[in-house]
């Protein structure tokens, strides 16, 4: 009954009264160290770099199946397509290589970054579309298809490289974006009253229905992913929006500031952990 569901939702708001921690001076660097320590302490048998494998770092049975499939991973076709798209000249003769440092090869681990000139977080997906628009081409839909293919290829050229996200100290707006991302991650939303942390900090390795939950540490390192549940590829935008609707929250628009900010925060938390994308997930 709808009325009951409403009461339950309200009841969930009356959670245990937590002792408020005294205000501590934190920094992104301190946050990251605490974040990584939390997970390595919770899962002492998992090597730090293995967290990027999400549920496979948490569950042996899933891991075996995944290793087998990696011989011919389901993202193979998108990866090939992405390489084609990446190298194909735009109508004006330029290519993606002209927009990115190092011709766009081996740079994925530097995204997102904070753009001083426009005071916004630039994610890889945003950078790809900015490149298209700058060259008179139609921008991609953020969720799948060509965006997933191109970011898959770019991630692939960065495989093994550690995340190297920066929150520049000389720009307070960068720290503000980082802090907003942190808030987004821990703030409960949707009728189910979950935050990202509810699943990915409290319950990694546990089941939600038939899925094994991934740890928040390294959760973006394998993106974009071929998800069996989707029967296809999906980007970071796709995952964020679907997470929202799964907790009965109306999703924001892909690459809205909140999503860029939380991607900034999560990527920073995984500094030092290797890019493993594109990935395959159940």
């Amino acid at each position, binding site marked *: 009954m709808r009325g009951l569901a409403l009461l339950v939702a309200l009841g969930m708001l009356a959670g245990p009264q937590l002792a408020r921690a005294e205000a501590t001076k934190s920094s992104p660097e301190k946050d990251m160290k605490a974040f990584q320590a939390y997970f390595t302490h919770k899962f002492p048998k998992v090597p730090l770099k293995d967290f990027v494998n999400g549920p496979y770092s948490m569950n042996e049975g899933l891991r075996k199946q995944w290793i*087998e*499939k990696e*011989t*011919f991973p*389901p993202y*193979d*076709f998108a990866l*090939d397509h992405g390489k084609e798209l990446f190298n194909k000249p735009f109508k004006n003769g330029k290519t993606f290589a002209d927009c990115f440092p190092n011709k766009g090869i081996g740079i994925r681990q530097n995204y997102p970054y904070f753009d001083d000139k426009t005071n916004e977080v630039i994610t890889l997906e945003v950078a790809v579309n900015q490149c298209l628009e700058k060259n008179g081409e139609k921008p991609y839909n953020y969720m799948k298809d060509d965006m997933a293919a191109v970011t898959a290829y770019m991630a692939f050229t960065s495989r093994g490289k550690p995340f190297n996200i920066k929150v520049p100290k000389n720009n307070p707006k960068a720290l503000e974006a980082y802090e907003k991302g942190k808030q987004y991650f821990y703030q409960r939303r949707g009728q189910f009253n979950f935050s990202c942390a509810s699943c990915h900090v409290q319950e990694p390795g546990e089941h939600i229905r038939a899925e094994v939950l991934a740890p928040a540490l390294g959760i973006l390192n394998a993106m974009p992913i071929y998800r*069996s549940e989707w*029967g*296809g590829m999906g980007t970071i935008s796709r995952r964020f929006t679907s997470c929202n609707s799964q907790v009965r929250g109306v999703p924001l628009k892909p690459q809205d500031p909140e999503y860029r900010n939380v991607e900034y925060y999560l990527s920073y938390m995984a500094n030092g952990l290797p890019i493993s994308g594109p990935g395959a997930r159940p």
Partner: protein
Amino acid sequence: MASTIRVRAIAGADTTEVQALVQHPMDSGFVKNAKGEIIPAHHIETVQFETGGKTVFTALWGPAVSKDPFVKFSFKGGKKGDDLKITWVDNKGATDTTTAKIM
């Protein structure tokens, strides 16, 4: 157009292990699109693996197998350097084939 079949076959002492990934929409014919219209059935019916003039494996797929199927199996025999031919036929009569060397 690029082949829809990726295959790797590795010969062991007595058996050869084969893994293959086939690109195909594998529409069952039961799923509706966003407009509520049935997406017509479009799926592989049979896949044959042949070597040394013999069929070593036949897969009968159909609507129950999902998109971009992955198959792994072993067969007795096969040696390094032999040709392994894979052919699929779908319900529309389309087909693709590829030949790979056993490693």
